[in-house]
């Protein structure tokens, strides 16, 4: 098959379709992607480009419509609902943009929840959760409810919860999406810390600055991977950098169409590594700064 041995994620021509007929959306368009153990991958791309869809497929929350997906060497298509649940529980940690803590449980109970589903006895799992909270610097907030914490703190709790089962893979869909730059950096530094212990991390971001933390950046557009580049730790990825400094001028046309100029600031089709070139004749205007028909929606 030619897949790497140590690959934790192997996607081959994976597609995800939503809806039928005219209302059909191609959320993932024959995406091929291999992620090895201990990679720190940032996923970028305009809204609607399929980033979340990709995360959900990789995280075994969603099933692709077509293509082959191997998780940790096992074909995902053959996994039943309960097997998927157990893999999520034991090997995947999720961090969401909207935190997704349970509001009626305390911080400590939230963090301990994955352990509860694993069958860890109450005393032990609370101790483990407490230890995790200490690691994210929130040991003094154990008995708070999520509603009593700041967004940054809640996200730290969510990270503690994602880590409590010592997962191989952490999937974070815009973990800093609701946070300011200081809190974002804190979260990213925490993830970097975790990464050092050997986990693979996959995160989605709209902020080019945050690609500094990644070892690899994947750009998506229209459900396909446009570019896939390795970056040095601590440096903003080249393409992302370009995006940062070439944010196109807003044109009158854009304003009229209600489209943000930022939408154009994404590299176009060629220059792809690892991604199969989309065969469909997608209009591929090279220059990102040029106007294009609105967003990624098809």
């Amino acid at each position, binding site marked *: 098959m030619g897949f790497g041995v140590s690959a934790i994620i192997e996607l081959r021509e994976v597609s995800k379709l939503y809806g039928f007929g005219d209302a059909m959306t191609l959320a993932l368009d024959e995406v091929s992607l291999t992620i090895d153990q201990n990679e720190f991958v940032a996923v970028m791309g305009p809204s609607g480009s399929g980033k979340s869809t990709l995360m959900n497929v990789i995280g075994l*929350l969603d099933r692709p419509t077509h293509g082959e997906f191997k998780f940790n060497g096992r074909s995902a298509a053959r996994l039943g609902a*309960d097997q998927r649940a157990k893999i999520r529980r034991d090997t995947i940690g999720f961090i969401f943009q909207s935190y997704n803590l349970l509001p009626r449980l305390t911080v400590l109970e939230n963090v301990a929840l994955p352990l509860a589903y694993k069958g860890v006895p109450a005393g032990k799992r609370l101790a483990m959760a407490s230890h995790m909270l200490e690691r994210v610097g929130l040991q003094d907030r154990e008995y708070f409810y999520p509603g009593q914490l700041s967004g940054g703190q809640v996200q730290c709790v969510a990270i503690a919860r994602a880590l409590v089962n010592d997962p191989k893979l952490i999937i974070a869909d815009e973990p800093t999406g609701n946070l300011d730059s200081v809190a974002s950096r804190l979260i990213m530094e925490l993830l970097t810390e975790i990464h050092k212990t050997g986990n693979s991390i996959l995160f989605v971001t709209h902020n080019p600055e945050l690609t500094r933390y990644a070892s690899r950046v994947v750009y998506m557009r229209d459900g396909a991977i446009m570019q896939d580049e390795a970056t040095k730790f601590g440096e903003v990825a080249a393409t992302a950098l370009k995006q940062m400094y070439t944010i196109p001028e807003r044109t009158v046309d854009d304003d009229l169409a209600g489209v943000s100029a930022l939408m154009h600031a994404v590299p176009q089709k060629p220059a792809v590594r690892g991604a199969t070139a989309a065969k469909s004749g997608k209009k591929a205007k090279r220059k990102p700064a040029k106007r294009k028909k609105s967003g990624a929606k098809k």
Partner: protein
Amino acid sequence: MIALPLSRGEVKMAIASVRSTKWRSLFTMLGVIIGVVSVVTVVSIGQGIKNQVGSQIGELSRDIITIRPGKLVNVSSDGSISSVNLLADAGNGGSLAAQDISTIADTKGVQTAVPLAITNGAVSVGSHATNSTPVLAATADLPTVLSQPLLGGNFFPADTTQQPYVAVLGSFAAKTLFHQSQPLGRTFQFMGRTFFVQGVFHQFDTNPLSLSTDFNNAVFIPYQTAQSLTNNNIRPYEVLVKPATSGQANAMVGSISTALAKAHQNQQQFTVLSQMQGLAVTNNILNLLTRMIAGIAAISLLVGGIGIMDVMLVSVTERMHEIGIRKALGATNHQILEQFMVEATVLSLTGGIIGIIVSFLVEYLLRVFTTLTPDITWQIMGLAVGVSLVVGILFGSIPALKAARKDPINALRNE
């Protein structure tokens, strides 16, 4: 791997979830509470009556035989009651004529036979008249046959020609008519005559569902007097017999039946019962009634179950996002199912327990304000809790299955 031990945390979480929606939970439980209260109360009243009837059959009165017109029960050859005709024409089955009474009295082994007849009419004390106090005509041997002592005064003598207008009161009748426990010497008006109270009975052990009139509420007047007041148009509804020797009740039942059948050439039917058989009849009727009413009350438990299902369905829909989060964190379908089943069970069980507490309250009120003595036994409580548990599990399973089967990503998308 399916057998996940029910952790304390899960139960705690379920309780927390039920508590966080206190009001809705209470209204959900209301159906179960009402169901349990009605079932427990009905059954406990029935049980209380049975207890009373049982204790009423004392050593002394065990020998009494009652004869009533109509075929009330079917007695099989071995003397046991095979069935009870609840709809027996109690009134239309004919009545006992004067000859029947003498037939009974003349049967060998009968010591005394006392006819009892209801005399219609209002009893008035001063200007106050009431129809709710039955006036029973009886002969002088009534206290002997019933083995019932008097609280005060004397029962009327066998011959009342000298003093026809005398009466003896049941203990409640004394209180309701005269507002005192021993209104000896007081008078009341009945059928245009002034009666003179010359005795009051001790309180009879009540038997609220028995086929006979409640003696505690009754006024007793001499049979002769009633005969002359009604121009001999008096029809006894019952004859009480005391056998000459005790322990002969069952044999006496046979010989009285035979004598009556012979006198009527098998044309008219009578019900001759010893006290023990009578107890069986009462219990039969009581069981039937209790079961019937409890069955009706059980419907409210069913309605309660549907209420639980309804609230759980709403709760599942409302908590779709939570279900999504839990699934993302690795909860299996089975674990989600379990969570909602535990919640439904906590709801219905709490309802059941509240229901039992309320039942005790109702029992207390019934004891204080009525003559009923409901008896909540362990069995009834166990049954009520068990049934509410079953209701919770039964009706909770549909919403719980719905929650468990939800696709994780779709659940997660629900905000």
